[in-house]
């Protein structure tokens, strides 16, 4: 469904953030993108919706080439790609409802959005989503009154109300405590499964990624060095991605945590 072909990004400073990345993601697949800081994870997902302009190569979403689109066609294409951010990137001074509805900006005209006269169907969908992420009682609160986990739930609702085919998720848990991190990851993955959405999730926490996703991609210096199922990640692979370190502990804890979590839920 999503296909990256020889995607390359060179910044004006000369840094090669992405070196000819090839990637194919089928419908409904949730992919974790791991790699050290500066490996190009953020650049990769921003090149897909062109918040960062790729230098060369192509991005194809459902057969549509995105890199050559003009600005209005690009806006239409962006509507089908929901994005979730590390520090939530909510508009802090707007209410939860306004933040969720802002996901519809690509579908409504300027004056309707400026006067907050969204179609009733959008409002209904916003309430449904807020209920789904467990924030239906918060609709009228201002975004800056919420806790980190709550804000990220609003961010998720904003991305989903776009009616996306693909979620681009940039470090969704990096600002959250371990428990909330898991809840957020679980929520994202459940929602993807419910709606048969594909997602690319940038994540630093390898163990957390292994718990939830079907496929892991390791990025290093702008190149893919691992692409496979999460349980195939070996200490050697992590060494190749991140550099020398004792990885046994990282991988082992997964199973224990998983069991503890299962027990807790039951």
């Amino acid at each position: 469904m999503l296909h990256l072909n020889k995607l390359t990004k060179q910044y004006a400073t000369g840094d090669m953030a992405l070196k000819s990345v090839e990637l194919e993601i089928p419908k409904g697949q949730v992919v974790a993108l791991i790699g050290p800081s500066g490996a190009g994870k953020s650049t990769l997902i921003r090149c897909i919706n062109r918040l960062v302009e790729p230098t060369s190569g192509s991005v194809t979403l459902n057969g549509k080439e995105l890199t050559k689109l003009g600005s209005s066609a690009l806006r239409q294409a962006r509507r089908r790609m929901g994005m979730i951010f590390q520090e939530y990137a909510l508009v802090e001074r707007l209410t939860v409802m306004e933040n969720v509805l802002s996901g519809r900006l690509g579908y409504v005209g300027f004056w309707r959005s400026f006067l907050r006269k969204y179609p009733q169907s959008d409002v209904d969908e916003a309430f449904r989503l807020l209920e789904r992420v467990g924030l239906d009682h918060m609709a009228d609160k201002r975004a800056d009154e919420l806790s980190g986990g709550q804000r990220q739930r609003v961010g998720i609702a904003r991305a989903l109300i776009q009616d996306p085919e693909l979620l681009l998720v940039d470090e969704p848990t990096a600002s959250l405590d371990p428990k909330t991190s898991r809840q957020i990851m679980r929520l994202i993955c459940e929602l993807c499964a419910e709606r048969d959405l594909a997602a690319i999730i940038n994540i630093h926490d390898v163990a957390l990624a292994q718990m939830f996703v079907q496929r892991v991609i390791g990025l290093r210096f702008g190149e893919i060095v691992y692409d496979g199922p999460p349980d195939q990640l070996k200490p050697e692979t992590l060494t190749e991605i991140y550099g020398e370190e004792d990885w046994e502990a990282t991988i082992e804890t997964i199973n224990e945590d998983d069991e503890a979590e299962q027990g807790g839920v039951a």
Partner: protein
Amino acid sequence: MAISIDKNSQKIWAVRDRNTQLTRWFVYFVAVTVIMYCWQTISEATTWFFVLDAPRIAGDIGGRAMPPKWPYINELWKPLWDTINIATIGTVLSLIIAVPIAFMAARNTTPHHIFCRWPALLIIVSTRSINSLIWALLLVAIIGPGIFAGTIAIAVRSIGFCAKLLYEAIEEIDEKQVEAIKATGASRWQVIAYGIVPQIMPSFAGISVFRWDINIRESTVLGYVGAGGIGLQLKASIDVLAWPQVSLILLVIFAAVILSEMVSAKVRAAII
């Protein structure tokens, strides 16, 4: 930071090394010399007799000014109302013009760096660098005396002030919020309305009431050059040495300024 090693091979740390410290002392010395020289020049150019005489003269005028001529206040309501109108309408006009200029001047929103940003900065600098009293003088000559000239003078002088503070606020916004709105497929104007405007609203409100507050004070003297408001009465009263009227006018101005300070403090607290 200076780190050196003394003879016991101990590491010594000082904020500055010796040369930097000596340079600093030299700069202090030059500064003190310049100040003393200036003081001397001013002293030579002053007729000290008048200065020594000042307390007596001040006392004399003060004595004549007391008590204020209270009945005169009935002639001041109208000019006071004019003054407040000049300040308020002038501020509103200036904001209407300053907002687009600020968006053109801010690095992150300007449509074009050379064709939009530089002209905008030029407008900001040129309107800011000329005092409103001088704008009023020019405008009285151009469009004739009266409230209209005063309002325009206040408006023109305020454009640069408001636009400068506003464009600095625009440049300091959190770009992540803007990025998030862009990612939804929002148009350029929607990005401004959702990503930028909510972030600068507190600054905008603060700047508006702050400038309105300054403009109340500035508009009280505009009448001096014929641009309407209470300054006209002030000038007339001083010209005929009607000190009890002058003292009343000053009291009224004082009250108006305190009131405007209170209003702007309240508004700012309510918004932020």
